[in-house]
């Protein structure tokens, strides 16, 4: 299995190179650094000197891919491509366009993100699977029918309205918890309660429906009939036999997002003023901080690929037939 993981990690390299080239093309070829400087400085302050200074300050004053003014290895290393893209491979994110150390920011800001995303993920998974199993238990009755109707209605509401409505009801009308903000330590609980709750509720519609289809695929199989014929109770059939056999499709969807939990959620963090990576990205987008967005794109891809490998490993845990070699 270790050999398999190492091989998979090697497979990840060409994909990361591809991601790197895409981001490089997007950020430096579609628009030249001069264009970015102009957009950043605003119309009124554009002078050639200002643009040159802007580029020097951020290290954008070098040639894109090949530097003909240098000799030896510096022909390739003293370029924007090497500085801004190749260095990402060793997680050297460099400085943001505002001059802050991106690596340090990521290290400090990922914990608040995780503090929200992890509870949302775990509680959500438990809640959706339970609801879906209940609907599978009551399949082809009015409980199931209206459950599906509720799910479709809930997934038709934009996530923005869950947040706005939740903030208004719980925070403003009932004055239970603060509407937004964040604090370290034990105090964080008060601030996390509402975003976690809203995160779980806003996912009910689509997720419950998705798990319900998975369970209904399983529920008509022969082993279920056998289990019932043995005289097992319907609940035991559902929660032991069906759930265990439905684990593969569930894990496929769920495990891959675990590493991405570090990245947080853009919308939730922006609305609740939580200093995580999600709001970091939003701030970067709104202030047009290209370095940060570039770093986040790369980080996101790395985490996604780790998630894919974890998914494969998780299969071996739930299904003894799966062997990774």
């Amino acid at each position, binding site marked *: 299995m270790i050999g398999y993981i190492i091989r998979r990690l090697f497979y990840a390299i*060409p*994909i990361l190179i*591809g*991601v790197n080239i*895409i*981001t490089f093309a*997007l*950020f430096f070829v*579609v*628009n030249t650094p001069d*264009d*970015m400087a*102009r*957009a950043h400085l605003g119309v009124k302050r554009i002078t050639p000197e200002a643009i040159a200074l802007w580029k020097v300050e951020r290290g954008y004053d070098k040639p894109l891919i090949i530097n003909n003014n240098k000799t030896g290895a510096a022909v390739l290393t003293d370029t924007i491509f090497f500085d801004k893209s190749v260095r990402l491979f060793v997680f050297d994110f460099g400085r943001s366009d505002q001059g802050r150390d991106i690596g340090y920011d990521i290290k400090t800001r990922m914990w608040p993100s995780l503090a929200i995303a992890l509870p949302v993920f775990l509680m959500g998974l438990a809640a959706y699977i339970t609801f879906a199993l209940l609907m599978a238990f009551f*399949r*082809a*009755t*009015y409980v*199931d*029918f209206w459950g*599906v109707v509720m799910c*479709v*209605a809930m*997934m*038709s*509401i*934009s*996530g*923005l*309205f869950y947040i*706005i409505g939740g*903030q*208004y009801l719980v925070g403003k009308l009932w004055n239970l918890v603060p509407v937004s903000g964040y604090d370290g330590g034990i105090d964080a609980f008060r601030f996390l309660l509402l975003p976690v709750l809203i995160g779980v509720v806003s996912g009910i519609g689509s997720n419950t429906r998705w798990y319900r*289809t998975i369970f*209904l*695929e399983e529920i*008509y199989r022969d082993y279920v009939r056998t289990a019932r014929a043995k005289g097992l109770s319907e609940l035991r059939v559902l929660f032991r036999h069906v759930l265990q056999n439905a684990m593969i499709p569930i894990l496929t969807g769920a495990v891959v997002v675990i590493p*991405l939990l570090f*990245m947080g959620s*853009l*919308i939730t963090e*922006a609305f609740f003023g939580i200093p995580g990576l999600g709001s970091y*990205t*939003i701030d970067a*987008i*709104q202030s*047009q901080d*290209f370095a940060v*967005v*570039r770093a*986040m*794109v790369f980080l*996101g*891809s790395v985490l*996604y*690929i780790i998630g*894919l490998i974890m998914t494969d490993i998780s299969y071996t845990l739930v299904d003894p037939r799966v062997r990774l070699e």
Partner: protein
Amino acid sequence: MPFKPVILWTDALVFVLVAAALIFAWYVRRHEHLLAPWRRVARSASGMASLTVLALFIVIGLADTLHYRLALPDKGGERIYAVEELSVLDAVVGPLRTQKEKTYSAPLATHLYAKETMELPGGGQARDYPRLKFGGAHLGDPVADYASDILKRTVFGITGGAVLWLVVAALLSALIAGRAGNMGAAWRVIWRGETGVQWRAVLITFGLMLLITGPVIALCVKYHVLGTDKVGQDVFYQALKSIRTGLVIGTLTTLVMLPFALLLGIMAGYFRGWVDDVIQYAYTTLSSIPGVLLIAAAVLMMQVYIETHPEMFETVTARADLRLLFLCVILGITSWTGLCRLLRGEALKLREMEYIQAAHAFGVSHWRVITRHILPNVMHIVLIAIVMDFSGLVLAEAVLSYVGVGVDPSTISFGTMINNARLEMAREPMVWWSLAAAFCFMLMLVLSANLFADAVRDAFDPRIRSRVLNPKQLEQRLAAASRRESAA
């Protein structure tokens, strides 16, 4: 000509899309095996009800797609056209667009939302809520006449709606009864839901829609039905304009994505070997970048491009329109991977089929095998993907606009409506109507799209076994099955 038609980029593509849909419909009508699943859609009550609602949205969206520029008053010499692009929808709802108040006013209000210092006629000043310039301006005494006027208009609207409904119902009965048929009998058939197309569901939905739109139309002539926003613009008008943006994003994105997904997916599955490797590498790479971040990065770059090339865009509308198109293209490029993967799998399966091996044996070219044998057999997957993606894209637009990487701020969309209204949550008392309007319109659009997508999927997907049956239907099925068994 008093006006000059203008075809913006998205308009042109919408027209292409409509033409394609019409050709597709004409083609399907002539082929019974293609028509069969659509008959199943027509038999589904929820599908037909949601299609009725969608039809209203589509009509509004299409009316908003026919753009033109008005001619300015003639000053001799050549004719000059206004820079502002209007649409047929703007012309139809005329006063809604032009009747701007000063600032916020509540739905159906006659006075502004905030107190102002006013000059009294006899000299001196007072702080009070000023009358609106247009909302309820026809009332002599707003306090005394208000309730009766609202009631009168509502009743008028409902009556008008009822009359229209009766006319439509009668026409439909006559149509179904045919030339010599009995209209009463036809009506009973409709009402028992025994027609091949679920006309009952259509009529009930249509009736409910008239019940709402009738009074709204009667009231919106003289009032701001959903209030006004910060700059005094009618919120109902904004909601109507948002429909087109939502529809354009939901449909054009698919139009952009489809060629990539179809061509690459089928090629990967059909040719295998190095073609498969390259295409798999491309979509694995693209899909490993988290969607929102890739979209954000691409839109950010597009913003820079637009800002540094202002000379490319003649009018503000043209710029906003091109930005909308770019957004569709970006969303399309980031979202083709899912469908591509599905199509690759299906093509892998199909290429081993006997009829395709037979085609190979006869020396049929690859291109012909793909177009004649593979493409028609993956169309159901494509169709399901199109209808399923639509609602997600409408929802995504709102989120992206909130993040700041959505449509141009000057484009009216659900996202910009929510974004502007969100800042007013903190006001005391709260300005809730903009949010409520965006919520209701979006919910109606997305909900009906979701229901219609479910109906289409149920009709087209051969694997569907776990359909939602209500207990009565289930009972009927079981009874039919046991009858068959006992007969055998």
